[in-house]
């Protein structure tokens, strides 16, 4: 079963439109959503979470239509949005106590362990937390009620590299259970490259592609070649190019022609920038 299925979803605002987006998050996997500012990542996540009404299309979570509109189903979903909005005057322990009265499967032991492991301040009110600590507390709340699916919108931004690394390990551990899944959006593409099984590129409300990360990295390569060799490549296989003056730098699809040239591995970030801008920087 797929954890999330989005089919032909559209959502129009005054100056922006999410346009016929379809993607799938299989169980036991992590899908990374990449896109520039204003691409529609948060809009898509809000539609999945039923925080906004879609104009057209279907969204299923574990096979159920509009699952998030059912309050009891939200026990299965852990969410961290880009702004963590917990009660400002409560302390971490009090927030845990409150959540324990709300979630049916709240695990205080897990929560206390995360507070300690992520070094979340115990003596300050939430409004006095730094952005990073607010994120960490949001993550602790999302993980402590044994959800089946995690949805993270820019959850690693504001975190130092050490904590980000620890968090990614926690997320990888989470998906060891084959029935779990994670949807995460981030500007820190290196985090997505490290953790994700699937990558989806959003640009100006449109889904450019949604593919297995390993397959994506196999499909494309980076090439530095002479103009003569560049002329041999079919234009359809060229994703982006730059004339250095001495030769050509380009990102291309791996084909019989390009495999004969000296193709280097390409990163997700490079690939995305080229797909959006059309040329190498």
């Amino acid at each position, binding site marked *: 079963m797929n954890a999330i299925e989005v089919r032909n979803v559209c959502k129009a605002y005054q100056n922006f439109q999410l346009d016929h987006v379809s993607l799938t998050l299989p169980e036991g996997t992590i899908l990374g959503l990449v896109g520039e500012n204003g691409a529609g990542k948060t809009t898509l996540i809000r539609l999945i979470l039923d*925080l906004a009404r879609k104009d057209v299309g279907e969204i299923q979570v574990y096979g159920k239509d509009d699952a998030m509109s059912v309050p009891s189903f939200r026990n299965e979903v852990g969410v961290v*949005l880009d702004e963590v909005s917990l009660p400002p005057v409560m302390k971490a322990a009090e927030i845990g106590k*409150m959540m324990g009265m709300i979630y049916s499967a709240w695990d205080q032991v897990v929560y206390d362990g995360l507070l300690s492991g992520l070094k979340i301040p115990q003596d300050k009110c939430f409004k006095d937390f730094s952005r990073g600590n607010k994120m960490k507390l949001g993550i602790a709340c999302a993980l402590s009620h044994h959800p089946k699916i995690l949805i993270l919108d820019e959850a690693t931004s504001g975190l130092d590299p050490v904590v980000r690394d620890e968090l990614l390990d926690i997320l990888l551990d989470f998906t060891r259970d084959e029935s779990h899944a994670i949807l995460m959006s981030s500007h820190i593409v290196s985090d997505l490259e490290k953790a994700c099984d699937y990558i989806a590129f959003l640009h100006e409300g449109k889904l450019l592609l949604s593919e297995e990360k390993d397959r994506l990295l196999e499909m494309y390569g980076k090439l530095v070649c002479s103009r003569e060799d560049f002329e041999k490549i079919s234009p359809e296989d060229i994703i982006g190019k730059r004339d250095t003056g001495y030769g050509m730098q380009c990102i291309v699809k791996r084909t019989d022609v390009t495999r004969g040239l000296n193709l280097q591995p390409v990163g997700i970030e490079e690939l995305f920038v080229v797909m959006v801008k059309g040329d190498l920087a």
Partner: protein
Amino acid sequence: MKGFFYKNVIELLRQYRWMLAMVVLFLVVGLSQKNAAYWGVYAEMVFGSFAGTLVRSDEVSGWNQYVRLLPISGKTAVSSFYIVPYLMMGVTTALYTIAALIVRAYSHGTYLIFPTVYLMIVLPFLITAITIPITIWFGSVKAPVVQMILVVLMVATAMFALTNGADVIARLMNMNVVVFAAVSFAAVAAAVAVSWFLSVRAWESKKI
């Protein structure tokens, strides 16, 4: 519901302690001064205003959005705005009544308990019932403007009724006090129920 009750109590004790202090002050003034019984009504109004404060504070902090991700219904979320304020108003009324009876017994004064308690129930309960759905529906910026417009309309209506409905007022004055009070309290209870219903509808319609 318990979680929200816990959260609202912590907010009251930590962020709005000044409200508790004001209530105590108003009650002391109301009980200690001969013709200041109406200060008890002011005390109730302070707790009544806490409901609107809760709604606005949740909106400003973003908690009202986060709540939509929790496994609770709109009815539970909205009920949390009613429980602590109305509970505090009920407790204040009960404590005031007991204190006023003691003061009257010891001072042998003509302390007006029943009219004060009547106003302590009718006015703040009614105003709170009006405030909550307006604040949920219009948000923290527009709600005060809407409330002001409503107050003006209500005062204008009351003035019109006073000047043009003299026979109705005379009949009300002649009505049995207990019946009058019972009808008023029933009307307030109905208003609170309608308010809750409208608040739930407003909350559920707030998706973008």
